[in-house]
């Protein structure tokens, strides 16, 4: 009988061993995916037991997101409050008591709850946990300049649009404002979310939750001439002094493409003999139309790619809150297989066609020119700091590669300076500082209603700050008239002028 008994014992032990294997599976292999499940109430609760880290502006003092301590059934939970009442609301996002999260609150959740950390912090946390003490998440210090951010929000007012500013040398984002906006504290209040959903800007569009700086797509208008000019100069096809004859229109496919349709162009409708630089300064469409025809759509699009078009700009916010820029067809990003036949090069050259861009992307174009042709990699988290004050991680500035030669960047810099000195962007002049800029006024399909752009940087000889401003649905509102003043004030604020 002992043979059978031995076998039975083996069966029993195998059964029990299987339990250890299964436990190992759930606790290591599958643990991550289970923790990420929407209905995982344990993860939800355990996150509220952690004192969530602060989100701070660059000065380290302005608190953008903090804890709200709630005692319930003898347990302490930490919910969220936003002491700055929605400063950079769409970028920071929110984290509700139902653990609905967006923005940096979502993408930095692991830091804020202390799930990602260095060794000494992890040990400290474990000791706290065993001792029954409070577990603290890490604090996050952003690159956001609180003063400039508040100013941008104030200048936008109830107009729909966005203001983005960065350090063109490093890519550190100083300002990321989107309008209409909301008070993040509302989200978790009864009926508050519905109220936010109904918040309308002057454009009549109720989408306060949308981060227009990274998710808003607009026709770039003449700001795209920065890309076309880059392609024209960098490819060697043109120089700033290349001559053009502007009859007030350009001939494409046997038809006239008239300057008169360009609201951005200041001065006379017909300039006659001009240089490329002058065409840029006065934003003359016929000049760029001819440039486009000569170098072709493919070259322009290839240069656009080098500036970051056709890929989602990197940033610490959730990837689904950012969009790539480029040609869009049927609401989808579209790169033509044969640009020569599928894309109208003349219209592409001055920013019409089916171009859709985000304010962040246009800022990257401006910042690249300011940065001598190298695309700075944008970032918004300066450093993560443990509860004990130690630095958990610090962002190092990096680049996305070179888009254009330093000489090309210098030429464009000069051309952009002339735009502000005596061209379409004079409203952005700052006394004592040379400002470089480019206006854009894109048609919206509604007569005399425009998308108004201004992309600029300053000081031109030693760029410290780059700004992109976009305003939606501006009646008779040209980029140089409505957006340039906003850019000017933001640059002044950031340069302490």
């Amino acid at each position, binding site marked *: 009988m*002992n043979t059978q008994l031995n076998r*039975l014992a083996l069966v029993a032990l195998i*059964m029990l061993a299987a339990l250890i294997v299964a436990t190992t599976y*759930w606790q290591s292999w599958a643990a991550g995916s289970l*923790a990420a499940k929407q*209905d995982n109430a344990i993860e939800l609760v355990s996150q509220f037991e952690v004192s969530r880290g602060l989100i701070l502006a660059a000065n380290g003092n302005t608190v953008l997101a903090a804890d709200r301590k709630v005692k*319930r059934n003898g347990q302490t939970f930490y919910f969220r409050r936003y002491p700055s009442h929605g400063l950079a609301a769409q970028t920071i996002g929110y984290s509700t008591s139902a653990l609905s999260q967006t923005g940096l609150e979502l993408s930095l959740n692991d830091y804020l709850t202390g799930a990602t950390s260095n060794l000494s912090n992890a040990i400290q946390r474990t000791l706290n946990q065993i001792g029954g003490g409070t577990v603290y998440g890490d604090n996050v210090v952003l690159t956001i300049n609180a003063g400039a951010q508040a100013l941008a929000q104030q200048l936008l007012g109830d107009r729909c649009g966005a203001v983005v500013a960065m350090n063109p040398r490093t890519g550190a984002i100083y300002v990321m404002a989107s309008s209409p906006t909301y008070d993040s504290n509302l989200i978790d209040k009864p009926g508050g979310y519905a109220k936010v959903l109904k918040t309308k800007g002057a454009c009549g569009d109720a989408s306060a939750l949308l981060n227009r700086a990274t998710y808003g797509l607009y026709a770039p208008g003449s700001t795209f001439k920065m890309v076309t000019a880059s392609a024209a100069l960098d490819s060697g096809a043109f120089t700033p002094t290349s001559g053009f004859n502007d009859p007030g229109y350009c001939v494409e496919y046997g038809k006239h493409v008239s300057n008169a349709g360009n609201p951005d162009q200041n001065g006379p409708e017909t300039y006659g003999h001009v240089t490329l630089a002058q065409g840029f300064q006065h934003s003359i469409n016929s000049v760029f139309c001819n440039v486009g025809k000569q170098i072709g759509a493919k070259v322009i699009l290839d240069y656009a790619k080098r500036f970051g078009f056709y890929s989602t700009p990197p940033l610490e916010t959730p990837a689904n809150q950012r969009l790539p820029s480029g040609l869009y067809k049927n609401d989808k990003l579209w790169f033509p297989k044969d640009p020569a036949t599928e894309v109208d090069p003349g219209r592409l050259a001055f920013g019409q066609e089916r171009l859709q861009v985000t304010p962040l992307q246009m800022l990257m174009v401006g910042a690249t020119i300011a940065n001598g042709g190298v695309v700075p990699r944008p970032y918004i988290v300066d450093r993560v700091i443990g509860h004990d004050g130690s630095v958990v991680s610090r962002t190092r500035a990096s680049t996305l590669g070179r888009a254009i030669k330093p000489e090309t960047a210098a030429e464009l810099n000069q051309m952009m300076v002339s735009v502000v000195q005596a061209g379409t962007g004079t409203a952005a002049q700052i006394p004592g500082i040379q400002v470089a800029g480019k206006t854009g006024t894109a048609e919206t399909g509604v007569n005399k209603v425009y998308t108004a752009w201004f992309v600029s940087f300053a000081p031109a000889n030693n760029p410290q700050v780059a700004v992109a401003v976009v305003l939606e649905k501006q009646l008779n509102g040209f980029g140089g008239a409505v957006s340039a003043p906003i850019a000017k004030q933001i640059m002044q604020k950031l340069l302490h002028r």
Partner: protein
Amino acid sequence: MLTAIGFASVYISRRSHISTASLTYALLFFVLYLAAHVVARFTVPNADPYLLPLAGLLTAIGLTEIYRLGPSNAFKQGLWVVIGVAVFALVIVVLRRDYRLLENYKYIFGLSAIGLLFMPLLPGIGQTVNGSRLWIHAGGLQFQPGELGKLALIVFLAAYLREKREVLAQGRVKDWGPLLVIWGSAMLVLFATGDLGSALLYYGIFLAILYAATARLKFVAAFIGLFLVGSAAVYEGTPHVRERVTNWLHPWTTQKVYCALNGHYTLRQDCASYQMVQSLYSIAHGGYGGTGLGSGVFQNAQGAPLIPFLSTDFIYSAVAQELGLVGAAALILIYMVFVLRGFRVSLAANDGFSKLLAAGLTFGFALQTFVIVGGILRVIPLTGITLPFVSYGGSSVISNFIVVAGLMLVSDRANA
């Protein structure tokens, strides 16, 4: 004795970890364990020295976790442990001369096993909990008679198969009668109570003892076939069992399915498989090291419990969260050691009845652990039975102490 003190000190240190006030609990438990040990020392001096400490350790882990989940339950469980130890002492003292007397009363055990199994079905005292009719209650006391029925069944099978093993092995048809009655009863119980777990347990024990006695794998295969046929019929006929299997195969749905609990359409993880899914979350949350005793999350932010039946059927997911993979694996290892000792007792026994009895008790113990923990871990469909010694529940504690008493009696005789 040294081992015992060692285990007890482990228990005390764990206990003081949560709160120093509960040291009295630890002290009481230690005294209790000491009492059991002394009784065993004097009545069955040659018994296996590991079984009682292992049982004590498991009980201690259970009490600690139950205390952590609800101190009032721990008090009641403490009382049940006192009763369990008393029954343990009683069984040992009464049967210390020769437990093999039981063999003579095998049919009484067989009949009482069936009686106990069917008891919850009686109107008036039967009670349905969580879709299964397993309980009787009388005068405010709840009891699961199936726990004792299981033991009676093991005694009957050990005695009957010891006597008939040769003739059965040769395949004499008439001797199969009582066995077929048992098979039919198990299926009936399964059908009537909707309790897949217990049916699996009884049947598994039956097959194990049958195999040990006859060494005929084809019998086992035949009975497994019969079981599958029966199960298929039950699956078709009982929505409760069908639901368990569906929950096991597809606990998560991405589309809303009909929820029988509230009549609405919801995701299955919010309805039928809620308990299992939340329990898996609990286990996963523990990770390698666990959250630490007392730091696990078992309530939502509003203070409502997340996992129903946490301290009874689902205590493993509480232990796995708080002690992590390290603690959970250690717990299973304790069961493995216990099972190994049990089979050692069986191997060392001199007569057929003793061997089969010890093997049956041990295999039943292992199978019960497998059925509940395997159910929680989605190895097999989830069925609600208790985790031996650890789960909160009086009937379970008492019957498990009887198992220990039985194994110690057998080993005392074998080593004498």
